[in-house]
């Protein structure tokens, strides 16, 4: 019987071997006879992705009113690298470390091995070509260096003076392709530029690209101006001005510079924002010591009162679908955050954390509300979900307030003041990381981020 046992064992082993052999999944694994080894990786490193952005090559030897294609290629690469670096998710490598350049002939066939040696994980390159009409075409290509594959390409045609926008669009392409987020670099910021003694600040509306370039002042400083916000179409800004000692809401048309007071209201109107369809304004109106929220149709000039009651109701902000409004009210005794339907119904409180919560603004993605949290003598920027859950404090300064969202709902812009009265613009990623200062010519406050330019 022992022999039989041994025979059976041998048979069993053979059959088991056969099982293993035939158990091979169909596909590339055709060599060794074992199944694949299973490995679990549950942790990695959170770090900005090293990326190489060499100067774009000149597609032709042309000159535009913004410079030669060679110069534009260098500047475009710098703009793109700056954008990616500013997001905190990428680390553009120092061009001094590059072992190769990308000429026109290698734009479509990069030397991946050379880029691997400097540990670039992605490569952004392209060309700038001068067009016969005086404009330019910027061709943008992104590559996965270690896989040796192209991951995105797109071309952008624009005027010579618009070369920055083309560069920002390229940066958006790379950013969104590598992170899965939608882009935000091709956008602008409007804010209040401040200067002068604290007791008599000179405030002017100013606008700039989100990277600080192309800065312009929009008003002269003769009148105190506050809280500018973009219309969804971006051609108009709403703000509050003390012109003629009559504080109220105004509209500023960017192309023409035309300024127009909104409505003929009894009291002070302030804290204005546009509705997502651009047809309405919502703002606060203070009459006889009571402040409520109103909606105003720009075309028909009809106004509708949305809140009543003796509390201060202010800082209204629409949800991106236009169906709800988040606002702040002290009707409960202290400043807290409330949400209501766009017609004013169903007003309910959503903030229940410590201290006071104010100045809410709804994310363009609809998933979060950013706000100012005040407590223990400090002001910080926080986020919460529109139902009030998931509250998180992202910053904690002496006076951080005036939050505004990037177009992709990923970055929050805000104003930070210190005890000496100086103020500036800062931004922070929604993860709480990458808090950084935006450069402005003078002090700054009340920032507002535009939607993505089309």
């Amino acid at each position: 019987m022992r022999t039989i046992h041994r025979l059976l064992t041998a048979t069993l082993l053979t059959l088991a071997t056969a099982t293993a052999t035939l158990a091979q999944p169909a596909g590339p694994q055709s060599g060794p006879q074992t199944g694949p080894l299973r490995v679990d990786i549950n942790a990695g490193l959170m770090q900005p992705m090293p990326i190489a952005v060499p100067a774009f090559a000149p597609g032709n030897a042309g000159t535009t009113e913004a410079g030669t294609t060679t110069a534009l290629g260098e500047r475009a690469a710098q703009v793109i690298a700056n954008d990616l670096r500013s997001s905190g998710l990428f680390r553009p490598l120092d061009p001094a470390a590059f072992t190769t350049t990308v000429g026109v002939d290698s734009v479509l066939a990069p030397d991946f091995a050379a880029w691997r040696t400097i540990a670039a994980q992605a490569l952004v390159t392209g060309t700038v070509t001068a067009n016969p009409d005086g404009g330019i075409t910027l061709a943008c290509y992104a590559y996965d260096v270690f896989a040796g594959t192209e991951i995105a390409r797109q071309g952008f045609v624009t005027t010579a003076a618009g070369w920055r926008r083309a560069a920002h669009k390229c940066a958006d392409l790379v950013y969104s392709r590598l992170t899965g987020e939608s882009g935000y670099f091709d956008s602008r910021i409007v804010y209040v530029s401040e200067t002068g003694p604290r007791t008599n600040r000179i405030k002017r509306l100013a606008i700039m690209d989100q990277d600080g370039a192309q800065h312009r002042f929009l008003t002269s400083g003769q009148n105190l101006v506050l809280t500018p916000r973009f219309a969804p179409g971006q051609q108009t800004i709403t703000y509050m001005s003390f012109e003629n000692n009559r504080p109220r809401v105004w509209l500023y048309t960017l192309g023409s510079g035309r300024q127009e007071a909104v409505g003929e209201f009894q009291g002070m109107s302030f804290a204005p924002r546009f509705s997502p369809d651009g047809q309405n304004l919502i703002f606060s109106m203070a009459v006889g010591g009571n402040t409520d929220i109103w909606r105003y149709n720009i075309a028909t000039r009809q106004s509708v009162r949305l809140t009543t009651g003796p509390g201060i109701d202010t800082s209204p902000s629409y949800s991106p679908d236009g169906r709800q409004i988040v606002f702040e009210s002290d009707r409960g005794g202290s400043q807290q955050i409330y949400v209501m339907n766009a017609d004013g119904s169903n007003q309910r409180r959503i903030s229940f954390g410590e201290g006071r919560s104010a100045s809410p603004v709804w994310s363009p993605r609809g998933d979060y509300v950013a706000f100012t949290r005040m407590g223990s003598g400090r002001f910080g920027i926080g986020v919460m979900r529109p139902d009030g859950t998931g509250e998180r404090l992202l910053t904690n300064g002496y006076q951080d307030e005036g939050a505004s969202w990037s177009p992709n709902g990923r970055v929050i812009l805000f104003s930070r003041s210190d005890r000496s009265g100086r103020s500036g613009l800062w931004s922070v990623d929604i993860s709480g990381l990458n808090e950084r200062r935006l450069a402005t010519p003078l002090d700054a406050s009340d920032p507002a981020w535009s939607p993505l330019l089309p």
Partner: protein
Amino acid sequence: MTTTPLRLTLLTSLVLSLAACSGQKQEVAIEAPPATARPEAPATTTIGEQIPAMGGMTVPGSQEDLREKAGTDTVLFAYDSYELDAEARGVLARHAEWLRANPGVRVTLEGHCDERGTREYNLALGDRRANSAKNFLAAQGIGVDRLSTISYGKERPAVAGSDEGAFAQNRRAVTVVMGR
């Protein structure tokens, strides 16, 4: 009649205060706006600054006159409050008296806040403070057609500083004489 040295002193101080006042209106250049800027009426950033008159006598019905007669043109508030305390009511009562003594003079009640609040809320709180003062004066019999209000929120502190002393002075309502 004043002596010549005194006149000279007063003249000098007049000239100096003129220079100081004009220095407050800063010339700010606009950097190439895209189109012609809408012409804006020159507006002073503070209302009602008036120059003390020559001769050492306060002009009746002026801001200075109000300050002299009532002791101050300003009432203060507690943090995040718009209630008038006893001292404030006393000051405003004297303002009402002065207004009765100067019929036809209109005033604007300015409401102000300290910086320890968000921008928009403070505009609303300043409005509450201004209306507190106005309502008090109206209750004292001053016609509301003579009383207007404006809020500056935290934009125009009286005192620079980020300590409690400065904050307390900035939480205020100011009775500003507008003229007749």
